[in-house]
């Protein structure tokens, strides 16, 4: 996809995720909006995945360690054809497969996640299996920044560099907000990049809501042979909806009718602006 098309796609996914959260009256709005650009880059441009054969052996793996921001992922998997788009209407309804965290009953989901600090250890195991079997696939693991307080991440960070897993790409959605407020107030993380560097990872810091920077970073891994990559994706929580941006309450605030209408209007304007640039056909 062209850059502008990816940007339009991300705006459409944001509209979709707001719509399903509004309908279900539950969801993690802020974190889903912040990670939408990352997931759009991965699923429409970077990862080797096949919606018609979701379990083929050499597919790239994606693990949503920050499992609570699953709404963007559901909308993308539906849009890519892993399951029918109508099923999005069942999101969070009684008995649905599309629950509030990744669920491997759904095609395209590798593992059940949701308890924080689980994704990276699993990803290390997957990447190690690829190395031992000399297979070409890569493992992408998306973590939250608040999630960095879980000690299991650091156990896995050690193992990832110990085993020289350059097929492993950790991504931190560094939006600087968690449920109780700023990450630095709740449990200070900085200097976060230096911590990952000290654990033996090659760290790349980018604007995680900038499609050009995301593509450049993802396309250049591994920059250093024998080292796992950590992409510090600096993002804005609530990105794309002006009144939700950087507001802690939008962690799991559900838009009311008026807020949804306003948000969709803003996102439509974003799409129109991108389209009028004449680069999207």
């Amino acid at each position, binding site marked *: 996809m062209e850059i502008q098309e990816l940007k339009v796609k991300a705006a459409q996914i944001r509209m979709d995720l707001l719509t399903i959260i509004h309908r279900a009256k539950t969801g993690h709005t802020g974190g889903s909006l912040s990670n939408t650009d990352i997931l759009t880059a991965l699923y429409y441009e970077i990862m080797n995945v096949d919606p018609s054969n979701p379990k083929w052996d050499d597919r790239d793996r994606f693990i949503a360690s920050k499992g609570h921001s699953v709404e963007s992922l559901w909308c993308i998997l539906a849009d890519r054809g892993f399951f029918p788009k109508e099923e999005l209407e069942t999101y969070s309804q009684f008995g649905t497969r599309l629950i509030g965290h990744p669920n*491997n009953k759904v095609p395209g989901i*590798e*593992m*059940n*996640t*949701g*308890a924080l*600090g*689980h994704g*990276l*250890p*699993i*990803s*290390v*195991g*997957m*990447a*190690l*299996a*690829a190395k*031992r*079997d000399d297979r070409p696939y890569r493992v992408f693991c998306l973590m939250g920044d608040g999630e960095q307080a879980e*000690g*299991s991440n650091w*156990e*896995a960070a*050690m*193992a990832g560099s*110990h085993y020289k897993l350059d097929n492993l790409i950790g991504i931190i959605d560094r939006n600087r907000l968690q449920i109780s407020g700023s990450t630095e107030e709740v449990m200070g993380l900085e200097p976060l990049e230096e911590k990952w560097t000290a654990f033996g990872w090659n760290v790349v810091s980018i604007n995680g809501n900038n499609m050009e920077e995301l593509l450049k970073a993802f396309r250049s891994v591994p920059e250093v042979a024998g080292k796992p990559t950590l992409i510090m994706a600096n993002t804005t929580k609530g990105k794309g909806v002006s009144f939700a941006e950087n507001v802690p309450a939008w962690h799991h605030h559900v838009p009311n009718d008026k807020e949804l209408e306003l948000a969709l209007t803003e996102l439509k304007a974003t799409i129109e602006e991108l389209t009028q640039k004449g680069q999207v056909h």
Partner: protein
Amino acid sequence: MNKIPNRQVICDTLLELAKDDRDIMVLASDSRGSAAMAPFANTFPEQFVEVGIAEQNIVGMSAGLAHSGKKPFVTSPACFLSMRSIEQVKVDIAYSRTNVKLIGISGGVSYGALGMSHHSVQDIAVARAIPGLAIVLPADRHETKKLTEALVKYDGGVYVRIGRNPVEDVYETDDYPFEIGKAITVREGKDVTIIGVGETVRIALDAAKALNDEGISARVINMHTIKPLDEEAIITAARETGRIITVEEHSIYGGLGAAVAEIVVQNHPVPMRVLGIPDEPAIAGKSAEVFHHYGITGDNIKQIAFELINK
């Protein structure tokens, strides 16, 4: 007397099986020595993974390996593997349905003198509450070999608990049928049933032999699989012998006795006694000393049988 601990039997068996199955992997948490897995690590370095002292990570990594088609055997002290990483067991193994074998080594009070931090007498209770996780405790070296062979073929999460030291044989050979989930009657009897698990099967058998000298016919069941539990064997024993004694190297809460009692009271209530570690930090000492302290002995089981029969 047998000189081979069950952990060594697991290593020997996996060494044999791994020759033809490159997907078998062994993981250790700085425990290759205590798990007796050094020979495996040396023979098949590509099928061995050291994670260091990191029990959450060892379970998560094993789930990732299993997801990619590997057959991981996680070997780590039972006390840490069963408790420190239990959320990973719940989510990454049970919930995600990955094919991981958790081998809890030096379980029960095997680390006798090291105290409560290293005793593992809550592990069965914790593991029982995880849906879909099988729980198996082999009785001796023969059963450990058969179990290891069965584990390689079994698709799904299993928690296995073994002790540290060599244990006396229950079986003369490994030439008997073994199936995960199917209890084994190691001695027929009609007056009382003694149900043991793991290393207590031998003690149950000793008690039954002593009872026989007193004219009492005791059935002995080796309930090697605590989950899925062989309910039929329990109900039949309750109906045919009218009394049940369970004996285990575990807290009296949530282990074998509790599991058997749940089946007995709901199907064929009979007098029952649950013998195990009481609700206290277990006393420190050699396994045999701790067993003796809590009456996990043939003599005490014999005494309990008398009490139940003369009620």
